[in-house]
């Protein structure tokens, strides 16, 4: 395992989990990401990433209540864990540092 380092897509999924709060389950995450990025995100990819994040301990999950839709199958809801939060904060701060280093002058020349 590569520790708490996050890939780009992993970070996106993790952020979506936080943003969706109580409603963070695979299909919803997938929809949200599709809306946000404008391309269609495959369920298989999201599912695999969620599974990996859970293995890394960045999210935890539990099954919800059974409903009549989905053929009676329960949803699996995801929640951010403390290491997950740390990883997000770490990723953000790393980016912020890099942003801060860019002088405004250089930025506007491009």
């Amino acid at each position: 395992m590569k520790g708490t380092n996050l890939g780009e897509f992993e970070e996106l999924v993790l952020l979506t989990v936080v943003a969706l709060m109580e409603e963070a389950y695979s299909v919803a995450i997938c929809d949200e990401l599709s809306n946000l990025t404008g391309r269609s995100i495959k369920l298989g990819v999201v599912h695999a990433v969620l599974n990996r994040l859970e293995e890394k301990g960045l999210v935890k999950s539990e099954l919800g209540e059974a409903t009549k839709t989905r053929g009676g199958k329960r949803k699996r809801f995801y929640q951010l864990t403390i290491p997950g939060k740390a990883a997000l904060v770490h990723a953000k701060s790393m980016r912020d540092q890099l942003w801060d280093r860019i002088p405004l002058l250089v930025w506007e020349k491009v």
Partner: protein
Amino acid sequence: MKEQQHHPPFWAQRFIEWYCKPELAEDLIGDLNEYFERNVQTIGPFRAKLIYIIDALKFLRSYTIQRPKFANLFINWIMIRSYIKTAGRNVMRNKLFSSINIVGLAISMSVGLLLIAFVLDLHSYDRFHKNGERIYRITNILTSNNEQSSKFASTSIKTGRLIRQKVTGIEDVTIVRDFSQDAKVGDNILPVKGYWAEPSLFRIFTFPMLEGNQDKALKDPYSIVLTETTARKLFGNESALGKAIQFDTLTYQVTGVMKDVPFFSHINFEALVSLSTAEQLNKSDRNFEKWTNMGLNYVYLLLSQNTNMAAIQSQLNVIAKEENLAQENSRIQLELLPLYEIVVGENLRDMRGSVQVHMPPVMLWILGGLALVVILSACFNYTNLSIARAMRRFKEVGIRKAIGAGKSQIRQQFLTEAILISLASLILSFFIFLVLRPQLIDLAPEMQRTVKLEITSSMIVTFVIFSVTVGVIAGFMPAIFFSKISAINALRNVSSVKVYKHITLRRALVVIQYTFTLIFITTTAIGYVQYKNILAFDLGFNTENILNINMQGNKPDALLKELSEIPEVTALSRSLIITSVGNAWGGYMKYKDSHDSVLVLTNNVDENYLTLHDYKLIAGGNFMAHPTTTAAASEVIVNQQVLKRFNIANNNSEEAIGEEITFSNAQGHGRKMTIVGVMKDFHYGKVNNLIEPVAFMPWTPEDRTIINAKIKSTDMLATMAKIESTWKKIDRIHPFQAEFYEEAIEDAYSEFSSMIKIIGFLSFLAISIASMGLFGMVVFTTETRLKEISIRKVMGASSSNLIYLLSRDFLLLLSISALIALPVTYFFFKNVILTNFPYHTPVQIAELFVGLLTVLFIAFIMIGSQTMKAARSNPAKILKSE
């Protein structure tokens, strides 16, 4: 609301449940369901289902798949032991049914075993070469005079040379050329067959050398490498290395002794002679290195480690294109053939005729199909009997289910039982295999040369796998059937379970079984009659009591003189070849139009040949001149087809006499010849060839000779011995080679007779198996209907009424089979097989029905005997026992 009626494909869902870890499965399926519902709304149910299936497959990933648990295996093993125990008890309890099943499966499986052994043997050919995967042989594709092209296994020496010079990406090339001469060491003379070969042969193939240097042995002219056996035959126990051998007038030196060529090798030889010798001997012969001289040479390539066939092929195409520019009326293409596809692969022409070991894959598929039919027939028996007798085992299954057995466990139980029975049959069938093996090998001389059928460890493994497969096929239906029984029904009341629900299935199986059996037996009958007709076919001349003696290179005069003194020999003639048995000789004939040349089949015969064989001359007369060289021969006798083809003298035989034609073949180009006689058409080729233009030319002392001796004798054996002793006076080295014309014809069609024997044997097996199955069913039905029979009897039914009642069903099924099988066989023969034989006799009704009658007769005996037993029983006893 309507949308809610659509459900995702059930089996896809089951599939996910099967492979997915249980903790992941629920929400995963839920997610897919949600998507499915959404997709039904947007893109319709059909595509939604499709996407669902694709997704189900896409989620098959390393993280979703559940690992097999060790505990499961352990529990399975305990259960399997229990299944084996119950299966064993069940086998012992129903001895009749068990023995029907075991014997039937054993008989049918022995056919499978033979086929497996046969195929394994064929596939073990040439595997001993270390570089086998990279070895290829050159195939020549010859197209001449815009005729259909034909593929030859042989090629020209030039091809080999050109490949050596020009082609890149190969490690080595070797040319071999047929060699056959008499070796002489002191007084010891031995005919030796082998090859002219190059040193590179040892680099490409793995033929280990015992004595001598592998790299140098075949380098110098007049060197010879012997195999161990040949060396022993020539020199006894002395070392052969360095010794001299005489071939003809030339002396060769033994430069090496190698191990014998393994049995499973497509090239076989007794000795190798350096090709450089052949080059020296043929220095003056311009034909030797010609591009079109492709009769006797074979070229093998060893490709480099990482070249592909396509790269070599394109280089070969370039070579062929260049060489073909110089050719007038023939084109030759070159092609690569992998070493492992030589024995089991495409049919190639070969000048050596039937010496080559070869089996087209199509043949194996046909044999495999036939064996499969027989095996399936035995499996059907098992299925039928198990399901028919299901009632007896309902309670057992019911209790198993009640104490917690799942469907899959019941399935496993019945499969285990079937596999157990089929493994028991394997032991029996192995003994049958051992008995049948020598029969199969002796079926044809080709067989003896092709396969050994020796038992190897890989063969045993294949046998066991095969037997387990047969068990699974046989037990599949019963397993499904029993696993579906509901525990409540089974325990509540046996008779309420719908046993007869599966009666259609059982009937269908019986019909299929008998249809195939009837097809088999009818095919045998028709094939046999047609084969006899072919042998008795009027070829247009007389073949009775004619002994053909092959002179094997000797001059015929001395033997002719000796033979004419034997009183039993009434007439003698000489000819180049024996016709009507598949041999052919020929050349191109032209009449007045110099652009119109036609392939004409020929035979060179002397002036006695026509009378000895009773050829019918329509016009003209026999050969008058006695030319001593082929070039001097100027007379020709043609058949009616020649006149028709060239329209000589408006097809008038009398006027055609004296007309002049031009004839060209390997012995001479553009010879002018005069028609001196016209004979009635006869069958020069085999019966499956149409009659084509044929010409007889005078035999000359330059030709190889076959002596045709008409024999009239009361004691054939003594006469033959007399003739053979005469032969020994003329030629002490070569064994006497003679055959009666009629035997030669029989040999020529030996493939038909082997085929009929095989199909006949299979049909015998099919009948036995189907009859055993039928017997089992009859016994079962009469047993279950014993009470009914008794009541009917009490009410006044007669024995014949009862027999009719009980056999009606079976007879109906047999009639359906006959209605399918007979027309199918008839039309198969009429439209597929017999179209290849333009002169065949039509299929007779008698042959069609002889099979049906046999089957009906056997069925009748079995049904009759059982129903008689039931009908004769005392109703009081049976009804009392309630």
